[in-house]
């Protein structure tokens, strides 16, 4: 009974966390949560070999297929991995007792032929892993970009392509934990010690890679679920395992009990389950959660954009006031004085006129610089590609430009990218001690990517450069990101990614 009641209870807990709505809506909204009863049922079937449970397993699968076919495809790899585990279990049981309980779905056809069981389990495992990598989860693009934020430069591409692979350490640990070899033969202390270390190492490594709160919680949830399930499974073998210990409490008790083991397992599993919906929502997002997240992002970036625009206008006003305006006032005064002096002191008047000419020239220079900072004329004239080439020409370092843009970028995005590259080039020339810079710009799959790489000394701290912070905020308005990688010894890489569409190339008017 426990094995039926337990997942049902867990699933009810999970569903109760949902907003009100019809059952169908809830199931649809939960998506990945449907995984839990299937896991529970499969475990139960695996342990008892009960035909009723097998039917329940099948019914659950059919329901999922009916209600959420999209989810069903995503469950397939999990199911396969589970089957592989069951296979390993069966094999072990057979080896021990000479007779196998092979009633579980996939292995029912190989009754009495244990030789086939192993390759079949291996096949399930391999297919499961392969599918796991290739089934793209909803929202994975967002994870990819979060990953890119921390995992910079060229590595980002590789990680984005195989991001699901990053979950493999957790899976492997789960398989290790659930494999019978660790229940028998090896002492619990050995197994627990090494597995805990391995788990901690995996968690540590992943957290180092991501430096992300979300991933920390994900791993905690996964760990709790796995350990909880392990505790409950262990109960099945309890009579044959004298002196075994399980769980944080029993490890420190003089005597152990089956009930205590199961209780701890349930508590840990429930804790994991409690964390899981939130974590899944964070990663994969039910529709509402995605929208809420989007609204938060938009609110933040809009505030930033408005602030930036206001600050920019203030700067322009100040520059005009102190620069061109002041010069025009001086110019008017010089001309007025010259007018008065012409009849009596023509030589002085002439000098004043020359001065006025000089002042107007300087006013022009200042206006020119101001205009360049607002919207570079060459960008307006020629578009992003030529504007970047022009930047490269003006850069004091030897600059190689590689641009693949089959069309023209919309003006606001183009301007943000232009200033980002300008800033990166300026930094390279000013700080890096570099001899040459490489600028790469390309557009693929609706994503504009730019990379500025210098051969300088590296060691730049992106947190220190206020210029790049502003650029990052400006790019964020377009859902763009900027990442800086600058290990000591170089090279420094500034990478930019902005989602945007390209319009058709500009046509010549003459």
């Amino acid at each position: 009974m426990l094995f039926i009641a337990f997942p049902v209870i867990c699933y009810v807990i999970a569903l109760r966390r949902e907003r009100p709505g019809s059952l169908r809506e809830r199931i649809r909204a939960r998506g990945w949560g449907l995984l839990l009863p299937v896991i529970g049922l499969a475990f139960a079937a695996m342990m008892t070999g009960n035909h009723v449970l097998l039917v329940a397993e099948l019914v659950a699968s059919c329901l999922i297929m009916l209600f959420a076919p999209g989810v069903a495809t995503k469950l397939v790899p999990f199911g396969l991995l589970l089957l592989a585990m069951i296979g390993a279990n069966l094999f072990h049981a057979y080896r021990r007792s000479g007779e196998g309980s092979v009633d579980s779905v996939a292995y029912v056809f190989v009754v009495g032929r244990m030789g086939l069981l192993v390759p079949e389990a291996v096949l399930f495992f391999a297919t499961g892993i392969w599918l796991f990598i290739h089934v793209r989860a909803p929202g994975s693009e967002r994870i990819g970009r979060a990953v890119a934020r921390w995992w910079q430069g060229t590595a980002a591409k590789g990680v984005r392509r195989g991001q699901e692979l990053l979950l493999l350490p957790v899976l492997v640990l789960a398989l290790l934990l659930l494999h019978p070899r660790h229940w028998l033969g090896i002492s619990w202390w050995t197994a627990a010690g090494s597995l805990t270390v391995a788990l901690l190492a995996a968690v540590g490594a992943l957290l180092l890679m991501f430096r992300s709160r979300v991933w920390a919680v994900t791993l905690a949830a996964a760990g709790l679920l796995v350990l909880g399930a392990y505790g409950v499974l262990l109960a099945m073998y309890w009579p044959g395992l004298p002196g075994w210990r399980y769980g944080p409490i029993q490890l420190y008790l003089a005597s152990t009990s089956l009930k205590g083991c199961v209780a701890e397992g349930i508590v840990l599993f429930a804790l994991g389950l409690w964390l899981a919906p939130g974590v899944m929502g964070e990663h994969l997002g039910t529709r509402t959660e995605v929208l809420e997240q989007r609204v938060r992002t938009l609110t933040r970036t809009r505030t930033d954009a408005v602030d930036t625009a206001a600050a920019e206008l203030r700067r322009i006003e100040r520059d005009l006031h102190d620069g061109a305006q002041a010069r025009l006032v001086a110019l008017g005064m010089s001309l007025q004085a010259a007018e008065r002096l012409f009849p009596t002191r023509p030589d002085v008047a002439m000098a004043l006129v020359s001065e006025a000419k000089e002042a107007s020239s300087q006013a022009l220079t200042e206006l020119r610089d101001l205009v360049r900072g607002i919207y570079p004329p060459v960008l307006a004239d020629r578009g992003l590609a030529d504007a970047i080439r022009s930047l490269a020409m003006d850069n004091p370092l030897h600059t190689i430009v590689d641009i693949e843009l089959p069309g023209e970028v919309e003006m606001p995005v183009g301007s943000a990218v232009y200033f980002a590259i300008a800033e990166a080039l300026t930094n390279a020339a000013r700080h890096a001690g570099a001899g040459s810079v490489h600028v790469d710009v390309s557009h693929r799959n609706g994503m504009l990517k730019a990379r500025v790489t210098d051969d300088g000394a590296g060691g730049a701290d992106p947190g220190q450069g206020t210029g790049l912070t502003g650029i990052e905020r400006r790019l964020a308005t377009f859902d763009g990101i900027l990442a800086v990688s600058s290990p000591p010894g170089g090279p420094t890489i500034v990478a930019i990614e902005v989602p945007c569409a390209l319009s058709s190339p500009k046509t010549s008017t003459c």
Partner: protein
Amino acid sequence: MRVVIAEDLYLLREGLVRLLKAHEFEIVAAVGTAPELLDALVRERPDVGIVDVRLPPTNTDDGLRVAIEARKQVPGLPVLVLSQYVEQLYARELLAGQAGGVGYLLKDRVFNDEAFTGAIREVAAGGTVLDPEVVKKLLAKRAKTGRLSPRELQVLALMAEGRSNAAIAQRLYITEKAVSKHATGIFAKLDLVPSDDDNRRVLAVLAYLDA
């Protein structure tokens, strides 16, 4: 000297016409759009065309493109391009292909009418005139010019602006002989083949800085 002027802002166009008439240029056409300019340049074959980069219809770099197109149709047609801002990119495009008869100046240079009319005559005579702002940007490539002395840099800048040895000597208050000595030194340091022709000299310097 027959001149075609293209400038879309009425006040500036009239100002240019007045200035050039005062210096005894003959204005054969003063136009305000790119198509009119192309027509005037090809039909009138002026001694020099004075062209604003930004012209209707698109108000981007139409003037520049017309200048390049006209020089394709009428090889060697002297064109002086004026702009509110200078871009190396545009300078290179103007200079590409053909030598001589090209100028690229900031509009402010009009303030100094002696120098400005001098530049027009220089371009009309087949010379090359580059704005000091462009040259400053060209010479900013550290790796390329790091080996030159400050004096040699000055001489190189003036050479790139398209000035003759005599003009450089006058500007720097040194003798022509000293200028040609500096020029030889520069060309030796940069591994360039020396040339007495001012145009080819500009192109050699630009090609070097471009590489």
